[in-house]
């Protein structure tokens, strides 16, 4: 009755399909008081890191909404060198404990993506692979997302791809996932992670101002889950790449929906804040579910929805 839970996420070998969404899991170490991260998860995805440190956005960065939160952290990070100095030893150990470590690459320009990738290549030999965050604001283009169109997303991928032989995933924004997915596949992406938070707006109607320090911010949590499942399904129809399904996963059922819709792996995100044991519970639940579904390998359930 033992199911093989291992999956291959574009060259990243995972002991089970459970990953964590960047920015919701610290860099793993913050959860070691809750459970044995290294022995439990298939992978973790670290916070987005750029070549140089970023301060991130002013406060407030958070608002609570119905079955959701909004955040505008703005990728506060200590730069690749600072990140590796602070977390490298822990993350190397994590990988040795059997948990894949995915480093997320952020940049405000193609040059910054390239530089961050080069620095990671140099300083983080322990990284299992990379996830390129193409939703970072493009400073030269007035703050629009770097990968907002198929052509722009392809350009980011074209920049990063030659600089590493390790697996490269792309974290996709919640729009045009079929078209952008195809463009990324054409440029050699190994896997796609979707979806990022959904841009949203929350106003204080007395002050007439945003409830966060930015006019818009990213919506996440159970509220967006069904939208994310639909986008994973759309993307899975369009590309021939493994997908990591992200968006409002708070339970093993949510994760199983993502797998049935076409995701090879899943990332637990906002639920890590609500329940720090969420990702561990998802891993347990998925294994029970796979056994109940009578499969030998969880991979048999990827895209197995009968629609």
């Amino acid at each position: 009755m033992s199911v093989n839970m291992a999956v291959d996420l574009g060259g990243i070998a995972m002991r089970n399909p459970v990953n964590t969404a960047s920015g919701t899991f610290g860099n793993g170490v913050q959860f070691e008081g809750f459970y044995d991260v290294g022995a439990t998860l298939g992978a973790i995805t670290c916070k987005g890191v750029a070549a140089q440190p970023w301060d991130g956005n002013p406060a407030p960065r958070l608002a609570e909404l119905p079955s959701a939160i909004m955040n505008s952290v703005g990728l506060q990070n200590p730069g690749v060198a600072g990140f590796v100095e602070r977390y490298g030893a822990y993350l190397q150990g994590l990988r040795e404990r059997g948990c894949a470590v995915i480093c997320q690459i952020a940049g405000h320009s193609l040059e910054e993506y390239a530089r961050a990738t080069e620095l990671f290549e140099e300083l983080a030999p322990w990284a299992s692979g990379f996830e390129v965050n193409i939703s970072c604001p493009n400073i030269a283009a007035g703050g629009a997302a770097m990968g907002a169109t198929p052509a722009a997303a392809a350009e980011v991928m074209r920049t990063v791809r030659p600089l590493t032989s390790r697996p490269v995933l792309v974290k996709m924004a919640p729009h045009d996932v079929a078209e952008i997915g195809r463009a990324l596949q054409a440029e050699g992406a190994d896997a796609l992670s979707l979806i990022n938070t959904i841009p949203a707006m929350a106003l204080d109607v007395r002050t007439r101002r945003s409830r966060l320090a930015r006019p818009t911010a990213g919506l996440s949590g159970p509220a967006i889950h069904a939208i994310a499942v639909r986008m994973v399904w759309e993307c899975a129809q369009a590309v021939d790449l493994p997908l990591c399904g992200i968006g409002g996963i708070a339970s093993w059922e949510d994760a199983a929906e993502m797998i049935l819709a076409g995701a090879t792996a899943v990332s637990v995100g906002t639920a890590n804040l609500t329940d720090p044991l969420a990702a561990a519970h998802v891993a347990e639940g998925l294994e029970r579910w796979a056994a109940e579904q009578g499969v030998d390998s969880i991979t048999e359930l990827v895209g197995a929805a009968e629609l």
Partner: protein
Amino acid sequence: MQDDVRPALHEFVVKVNEPVAQDTYRLLIEAPELARTIAAGQFMNLQVPGDASHILRIPLSFSCADAAAGTVELVYAVVGEGTARLAAMAPGQRSTLTGPSGTGWRVPEQPGRVLLVAGGVGLPPVIAAARMLAAAGVGFDAVVGARDAAHLYERGVDELRGMAPDQLCDCARRVLVTTDDGSAGIRGFVTQAVEPLLAERTYVQLMACGPAPMLRGVAELADAAQLPCQVSLERLMGCGFGACSCCNVELAAGGYALCCQDGPVFDAKEVVL
């Protein structure tokens, strides 16, 4: 950042949950491991059951951790939907919390008297600070501000007055109350009581918790008196243990710290209040 802060998930049982002032409740929970490990100025993040549409926990500081009894006392204001839900929890009900979280109060390195300043629901962590000082044999005075007599958590004031007397000071402890409308103690803001105390008595440091404008005022007075000042800050929090970076606090030197990990207690000079 203190990555070695590793809160755990604890189950707790409500022992007492009683109104103690207007919109103010005293919650006593049984959580033995937390009671043993939590330090003054740290906080915990409570899951309050009932409404799944609110996905965040409720971060609360505490006033007293009793390791022997295995209990922790929290005093909180009912300010929104979440704390209203907490106020409805009955003795015997169970839930979970994460903690201990963050960086708490530090006992001053130099010997001498501390001036504690509390505004509104800033009082509970100040009570915890007072217990910490008393246990370390450090003397203190205190100023406690409230909107009016009805909102004043009087039992807390009595606790401050009743704590073990200073071992290093021969003069009596002063615990002053201020209210905005004068319905209890001195009429005015806490700063109006802090200023004369600073002029009259000798302190090595201030430790303050309360609304942002109050903290700014207290920090300015400390600065003028050339005294260090620890402040305990409040932020809306995502996780409460450094995972989401949502509770940023602007640093005077530029950039941001995280309230849940680097704080909630900061040196007033290091942050933009």
